[in-house]
Each structure stands twice: as structure tokens, then as C-alpha cells.
């Protein structure tokens, strides 16, 4: 069985609109899967549902999330949190808000190891040093004692990556991890994530809107629209021959600096209408 297996997951605003419409998704050990879609597609919701960080106003209405052979949704809250904490980790979008400004960097990396996994403090600190070296921070001792505001955005993103890999998780969810960064920094960070992933052989669910990034980092990808899975493919298969009309339209709308003459084609109305009809049909099936 897959390491992560999502079956028919539906998520909705409490008492309102559905955000994920019966989504199924598999991630094998060591696989890097891209989750692609435009805003409102529900790509971030999937990550949040797995990690149990859905907003207060959002609830899971049906489905299963199997992580390493256990359906997370059947577990009581505390064991579920502990299991997620031990097996999975998050690389968040905005490095500026993802570190607690009132705590030093060191404890923020070692916290999970000591509090959740019961490591001894010296072991955890040694592990933190090792990880910071691995993400190419050379002034390790100083950085561990810094407050987040004393560090640059790229540096903070490195620390977050180190922290995500700290407990050797089997699955990492990266939620638009480079959207807030300059392109030159983005390249360094992506290189780092890809290298760490390969070295630790961690499964990676990479949420992004940028097809360029997907083509560089991922092996497989899932395209979403309106909380529906539109297409699942290998990266090579997708970019060489996208199957769904929406996938083709997304590719055509993405500007490429190497191809100045390709005029940008907006997603055709017919494609959008067909998708909306699919969404409506899914909702009818759901309510009926």
C-alpha cells in the first residue's frame, strides 16, 4: 500500500460550500508529487487536512486519510497529533511568519524532538547542529541562539527546512515554500529541498501554482480544479502530452521567456464551463 493514501476526501466550510470534492490521492515512499492548481482549487486544503491544521470554519465531511497504514481520521485527537508529528512535517509558505518571533531558533528546531518524541536535550541539540550544517548554514552556534527577526528570509527558510527534516519524517508537505522568495533565492532553496529529499528518501507533497517549479522538483503531479482531481500524471508525461483540456490550457497560459512569440492564451471559456459542470455534477451526486 502507498505510504500516504487519501480516499474520497471531502472537505467543506461548516454548513456551506464544499472545498474538496471526493479527492483520492496516493504518495509512495520517497515519491515527490506536485499538487497543482489555481487559487480556490483546494491544493492547500489537502495538505492541511493531512496535517490536521484545517481552519476552524472548515470540516472534513467524509473520506479516509491513510498514513503508514492507519486512517488518521479514525484516531482520537491526541494520538492523531502525535502520529502526524512523528511521521510527517510541513515546510510552510512564508518564512517570515513561520518562526515564532518570541523564541530563539534553537528550541524551535529541537522542540518536536524533545517534547513529542522524548529525545534527551543534548541529543536533540546535536541533531539540530547536524541539520543546520546540512542546509549549508555555517555559523551554526550563532544561528541557534538568534531570534528569527535577526535572520534573512532565505536563512529562515533554511531553518524551516532543517526543522522539517529533524525527526526523519516519512512525508513532508511543502506548501508553496518558495512563493515569497526572489527567483535567485528560490533556486537555492529548491535545490536544497530536492537534495535533502533525495538524501533522506522522504516522500514529498509539493503544493504550488508554478508549473515551472513542478517540472524541476517533482516526479508525479496531480492537477486540481474546484476541489476535483482533473489529471494525474508523471511529470514527463504531463509536460510532453497533457491529457485534460484544462491542463493544456494551464500550460498555454504560463509564460516562457525562451519562447517570446507564444502569445499567452487564457484558459478558454469552454474549458472552464466544462469544469464547472463537472463540479456541479459532483455536488449533485453528493447531495442526491
Amino acid at each position, binding site marked *: 500500500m502507498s505510504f500516504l493514501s487519501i480516499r474520497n476526501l471531502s472537505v467543506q466550510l461548516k454548513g456551506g460550500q464544499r472545498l474538496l470534492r471526493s479527492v483520492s490521492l496516493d504518495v509512495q515512499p520517497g515519491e515527490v508529487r506536485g499538487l497543482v492548481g489555481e487559487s480556490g482549487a483546494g491544493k492547500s486544503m489537502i495538505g492541511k487536512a493531512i496535517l490536521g491544521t484545517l481552519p476552524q470554519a472548515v470540516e472534513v465531511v467524509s473520506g479516509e486519510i491513510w498514513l503508514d497504514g492507519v486512517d488518521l481520521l479514525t484516531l482520537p485527537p491526541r494520538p492523531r497529533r502525535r502520529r502526524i508529528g512523528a511521521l510527517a512535517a510541513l515546510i510552510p509558505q512564508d518564512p517570515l511568519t513561520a518562526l515564532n518571533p518570541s523564541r530563539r531558533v534553537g528550541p524551535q528546531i529541537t522542540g518536536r524532538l524533545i517534547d513529542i518524541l522524548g529525545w534527551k536535550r543534548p541529543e536533540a541539540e546535536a541533531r539540530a547542529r547536524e541539520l543546520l550544517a546540512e542546509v549549508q548554514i555555517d555559523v551554526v552556534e550563532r544561528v541557534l541562539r538568534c531570534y528569527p527577526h535577526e535572520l534573512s528570509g532565505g536563512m529562515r527558510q533554511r531553518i524551516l527546512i532543517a526543522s522539517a527534516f529533524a525527526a526523519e519524517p516519512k512525508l513532508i508537505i511543502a506548501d508553496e515554500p518558495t512563493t515569497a522568495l526572489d527567483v535567485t533565492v528560490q533556486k537555492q532553496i529548491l535545490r536544497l529541498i530536492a537534495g535533502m529529499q533525495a538524501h533522506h528518501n522522504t516522500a514529498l507533497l509539493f503544493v504550488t501554482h508554478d508549473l515551472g517549479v513542478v517540472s524541476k522538483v517533482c516526479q508525479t503531479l496531480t492537477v486540481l480544479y474546484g476541489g476535483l482531481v482533473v489529471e494525474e500524471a508523471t511529470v*514527463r508525461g504531463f509536460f510532453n502530452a497533457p491529457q485534460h483540456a484544462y491542463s493544456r490550457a494551464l500550460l498555454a*497560459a504560463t*509564460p516562457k521567456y525562451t519562447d*517570446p512569440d507564444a502569445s*499567452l492564451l487564457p484558459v478558454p471559456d469552454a474549458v472552464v464551463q466544462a469544469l464547472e459542470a463537472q463540479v456541479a455534477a459532483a455536488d449533485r451526486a453528493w447531495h442526491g
Partner: protein
Amino acid sequence: MAELYTVSDLHLSLPDMTRKPLLGAAPRLEILKGLSFTIPSGEILGIVGGSGSGKSTLGRALIRLLEPTAGSISFAGLDITHLPESRLRPLRCRFQMIFQDPMSSLNPRQQVAQIIAGPLGVQGLDHSPARIADALDQVGLPRSFAQRYPHELSGGQRQRIGIARAIALKPEFILADEIVSGLDVSSQAQILNLLAGLVKDLGMTLAFISHDLSVIRRLCTRVLVLQHGRIVENAATEQVFNYPQAEYTRELLGSIPLPDPDQAWL
């Protein structure tokens, strides 16, 4: 082609409030460190650079939302470097701006009709409902949108209102500051196509600020690459993309992930 803008040795510094001592003035942070370039009429100039390169500051200096500390900016032969606001006001309809974040740049408590009519009224131009309807037609929005508030629109629609507000004044020059950075690729394509069409039809000059070189290449005739407040490259678009001169330009180009799994990148 006549030069619409001539910028020479432009310097601009802003007080750095984070380092302000408790008594006395804040130290000044030099953001633009001597820029010289021209924008010929009818050109679409791309201004590109990373965060902190000074590209937005340069934009705001061009339309005199900021006053330069040294150097000069002349617009259509007129030195506007230090013109007081009262003398800029009659000129303002000639250079306009489209903002990055339409949520912040559209007054949340005005309806679309008021938002577009406001500048027309201030400049003493026709701001009748018919004129507003025209403006909405131009940016491809239904006329019924005149009665909506900004929060009732999608991101792409809001940005169209921003464009409608700017072009309604029939300016000679438009500054577009990262106007598609918050949008999905499909709305991004629509907005870029709309803007390109309008600029061509109305014969306007455009400065397009962006961090995205792919977008710049699609749209612009000339590119200005900024780094740390200095121009590192200023050349025709083809030139910049095919034979980049500056080290920084090459680094920028090399950092862009193309949607193509065969490009060796990492």
C-alpha cells in the same frame, strides 16, 4: 522617436524609520543610486529586479509619488523633478499608474462607477455614466459592474478596474507596478493581453515593473535590469534575453524554472 522621459543621475533616499534615533532625523537609506535612462514615446519598458532592487521606488519617482533627492526627471520636455504638488496636479492626467494590490488601491467603500469617475471628475473631464460604461467596455467588464464594490469582484476583475481607472484619463504614460503578481496564470494571461492590446490601440507608453522575466519578455520592447538601486543592464528585449551582458542578468535568467522537465536546472 521622441523621448517621453529623460532620467539623469537619479538619486532617491528615504528616511529609515527602523533606525531612527530618538532625537533628530532618521538616517537616510539610499534606494536609487544614480540612474540614467530614457523612455522613448511608444515604448514598453520592462523594469526588472529582485526585492530591494528599487524598482518600485523608481516607478513611484517617475510619476512623482516620491520626490527625488538628486538628479532630474523630465517628462515630455518638462522638468518635473521637484515640481510642487499643486503644479503637478494639472499634469497628472498625462501619467497614470496601475497598482500591484487592487484590494488596497481601490477604495473599499466606493462603487466601481465612483472609482473610475473620481479621477475624471478631478481632472474636469467627462465622467457621465456613459463614459464609465465605455471604460468598462474597454477592459471587457459588463456595464452592470458599475454598481459593485471592490470586495464583490475577483482578483482579475479588480485589476481590470485598476486598468480602466488609469486609461480613462487617456494618459500618455502608464506605470504598471507588479500588476499580475497576485493573480493566477489564467487571469494573468488575460490581464497581460488586455494591457498589451490597449497600449497598442491607444498609442501609450508603458513602464512595466515585474520580478518575472517571462512576463517581461512577452510584453516589453526594452528591459531595464536593476540591482541594489543601480542599473546593471539596459537593452532591447531580444538583446537582454539572447546575449545578457551583466552577471546579475545571467543569474536571473538562470534562476527561472521553465515548465519543461528536460531543461537541466537544479
